[in-house]
């Protein structure tokens, strides 16, 4: 199991790095998907099977497709490459600096914190399965569930208003 965790972790990190470093947007999308795969594996290691599947379907299957469609829409005629990609501007330098510092800090916190000594709790065998998950979602947490549904509807309407062409 350890090896799998390490590989999954590396996949996730590699994906993010790919987003930062790759030039063409499609490569970035692929890198993102790669990262999602790694994350799904990590969920599995945490006994959250349902969530892993949801992650792959929704994120990888819907959101990234959406990205690809937009890329196709916008860059139909030319090669979308950002300007001054390789140059190290002040903004980039600052970005790397702050981000790097944040990374270090958080990693330190993560690795060496936790005096509470939180240990893994004992869970029943069907932890993370569809049925108990669904039960929790639709009884204890039904209110947020409904609200999120509402949010989705708002998003759809919003997108339609924003981008839908109005023909007379």
């Amino acid at each position, binding site marked *: 199991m350890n090896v799998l965790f390490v590989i999954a972790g590396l996949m996730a990190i590699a994906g993010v790095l790919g987003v930062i470093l790759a030039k063409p947007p499609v490569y970035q999308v692929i890198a993102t998907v790669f990262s999602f795969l790694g994350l799904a594996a990590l969920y599995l290691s945490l006994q959250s099977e349902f969530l892993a599947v949801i992650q792959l379907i929704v*994120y990888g299957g819907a959101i990234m497709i959406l990205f690809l469609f937009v890329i196709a829409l916008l860059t139909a005629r030319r090669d979308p490459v950002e300007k001054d990609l390789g140059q190290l501007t002040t903004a980039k330098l600052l970005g790397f600096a702050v981000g*790097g510092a944040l990374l270090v800090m958080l990693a330190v916190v993560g690795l060496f914190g936790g005096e509470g000594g939180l240990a893994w709790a004992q869970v029943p065998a069907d932890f993370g399965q569809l049925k108990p998950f669904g039960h*929790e*979602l639709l009884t204890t947490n039904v209110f947020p569930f409904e609200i999120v549904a509402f949010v989705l509807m708002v998003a759809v309407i919003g997108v339609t208003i924003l981008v839908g062409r109005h023909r007379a």
Partner: protein
Amino acid sequence: MPAFSLNAYVALSAVLFALGGIGVLVRRSPLAILMSVELMLNAANLLFVAFGRAHGGYEGQIMAFLVITVAAAEVAIGLALTVLLFRRRKEADVDQVNELKL
């Protein structure tokens, strides 16, 4: 029982979050920025699930579920805005969109 300690998950989540942040700061295309934001959200999700597992309840997973959903909605809107931006200017450079200031 997961093989590694909780700390490992927390550290990994932190790294993913920070790297996503770097992505937000460094790239100029709005698409890249949105993708980086997604990756940051994923890092947060990982943290939620890990701690939820540690406590033995479902709250972490449910929270991650809700986050995924909202992220989907947000991406939709973000992409719509990017499309609008591209229509107006024929190129997408976040640094050109600088009218939101005093």
